[in-house]
């Protein structure tokens, strides 16, 4: 799920940036530091949409660096249990398949792939129904449901399922080829 939230961060700035462009430098550094990172609590920071406020700076003794508390708005992405996501398949093996929804890695075990789909090894490993009409392979797009998330400091990993109504392949690269 995406959220638009306000976050705060203490930014350290080198003295060479002190001057008329201080605020610009601060914002540029904020974007560089924060966008694309993941925090366990809020999920992945997708983009900064605005800076609300730059607080009072405090000089750090000895280094001359100044720390500013910066409050900014940003779009974050955090998967939740029960959420339906669309994801691109990356790896297919006997155990199941891995898929990615943006920065989130999702594993769908063969227990949670419909029983009529069987693993086929070969140069392009895939899961295929017995009549061959549906195929999951690398680069397939699937709609899946998150059943578990594990949130670490820098990474979010999910377990998903496609063994439910309206879940499964939504775009098959093999069919188009």
């Amino acid at each position, binding site marked *: 799920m995406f959220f638009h939230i306000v976050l705060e961060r203490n930014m350290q700035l080198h003295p060479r940036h002190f001057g008329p462009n201080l605020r610009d430098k601060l914002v540029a550094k904020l974007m560089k530091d924060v966008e694309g990172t993941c925090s366990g609590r809020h999920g992945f920071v997708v983009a900064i949409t605005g800076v609300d*406020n730059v*607080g009072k700076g405090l000089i750090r*003794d000895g280094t001359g660096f100044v720390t500013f508390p910066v409050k900014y708005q940003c779009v974050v992405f955090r998967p939740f249990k029960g959420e339906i996501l669309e994801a691109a398949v990356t790896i297919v093996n006997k155990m199941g398949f891995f898929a990615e929804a943006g920065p989130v890695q999702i594993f769908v075990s063969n227990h949670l792939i419909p029983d009529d789909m069987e693993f086929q090894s*070969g140069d392009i490993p895939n899961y295929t129904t017995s009549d061959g009409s549906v195929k999951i392979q690398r680069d397939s797009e699937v709609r899946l449901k998150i*059943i*578990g998330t594990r949130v670490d400091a820098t990474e979010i990993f999910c*377990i998903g399922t496609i063994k*439910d109504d309206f879940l499964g392949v939504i775009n098959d690269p093999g069919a188009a080829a």
Partner: protein
Amino acid sequence: MSVDGDSSPLSSSGSDDFAALLNEELAGISSDESLEEEADETDQDHDGEEEEVYEELNVEDADFAPKRSKRQRLDMLDDDEGLHCSTSLEPVSQSSDVSVQLEICAHPSLIKGMCVKCGRMVDDVSAVALGYIHKDLKVGSDELARLRNKDLKSLFRKKKLYLVLDLDHTLLNSTHFQHISPDEEYLKSQTDSLQDLPNGNLFQLDSMRMFTKLRPFVRTFLKEASNMFEMYVYTMGERPYAMEMARLLDPGKIYFDSRVISQADCTQKHQKGLDVVLGAESAVIILDDTEYVWRQHKENLILMDRYHYFSSSGRSFNLNNRSLAELKRDESEPDGALATILEVLKRIHQLFFDLEQDDDLMRRDVRQVLKTVRSEVLKGCKLVFSRVWKIGEQVENQRLWEVAEELGAICCKELDASVTHVVSTDMGTEKSRWAVKYKKFLVNPSWIEAANFLWQRQPEDSFAVNDSKKEH
């Protein structure tokens, strides 16, 4: 904002003054101070709200999933009223869904400590880590058995078995740049380009500071073996090395896929085990040049003659003769070790799938087939050993004795008329002279070794015993 926690108490007053000054200055740049403070307060409030939002969401996650799907269904039913006949079915399937969800999960395997079936965090220490599939994947023993069984069925449908391949000295030979001997320097100008992976066989890998020479015939070997086997790479090398070698051998990623097992995946130190291989032991053949690492799976093993192309490789096994690279020679392609073994593999594969007497494929065991094929190599030979080992040693425990018996020969201690071969290191012993007198075959011990590696009875003439007088 307790940022200057590291400032010493002595200098603090001065820095505080300066900080105040700077703040005043900055206030002009950014915004009004009072506003900032207000904003601070509102932010704290906001933070609190945020948490609440998350909590609500979590509650929803936990309880809402079944409800939500119900709502979805109801919506659907409202939409198409014409399908009322199916309504009676809907609740039934739904309730069965719910009961499945309520079933106790056996936690078949874990990824990052999370059960792959129910998504809960589980702590299972007995699960086997399969790091080569995913770095955080652990699979329980029941699940391993289930997977193997399932996989075996689909594999047999394709008439395939498993083949576990070692890298170093079996399929290729590598050496570090600094271990190249002066006579091998010429190789540097003969390496194949890394752009031409499918055809080259000598590569210079700058990132690992290594030369790698693929064993002659290996490309054909892999191509033909892939029709009969699902192949794994299993090496005691480290993961980056294993991956790089797999790339050289299989640039198209069609033979090994993710089945590359390296040192870090082994569950026991200095031992290779089939416990991390997703294949039933009864259908696995192992090709390796080192016997002791497969202590628990000797019956699956086909021992390979070591491939030493570089001199450093031979030296590490105390072989001091000149290396193939120094002699500018190489193993023969049409009848080198890999070509020979490919023939053996073909025969085993054929026997395994052609056995008429037992219809149940699942109960067949490739180890039995391996044993049978092996025991036909020296069938009909009756061996007597002379001066092969020291007097007083238990002959039955000798490796050569064991090998000879595995190859189907009958070994005995005393001479009689039915003996066909005398294996000796010395022309002068009583048994050797007896062999000459009665026109029996007199061979040196490497005749057995050769038969063991080549899976064929070797011409006895090429293994004649050297005259001890000439030798010294």
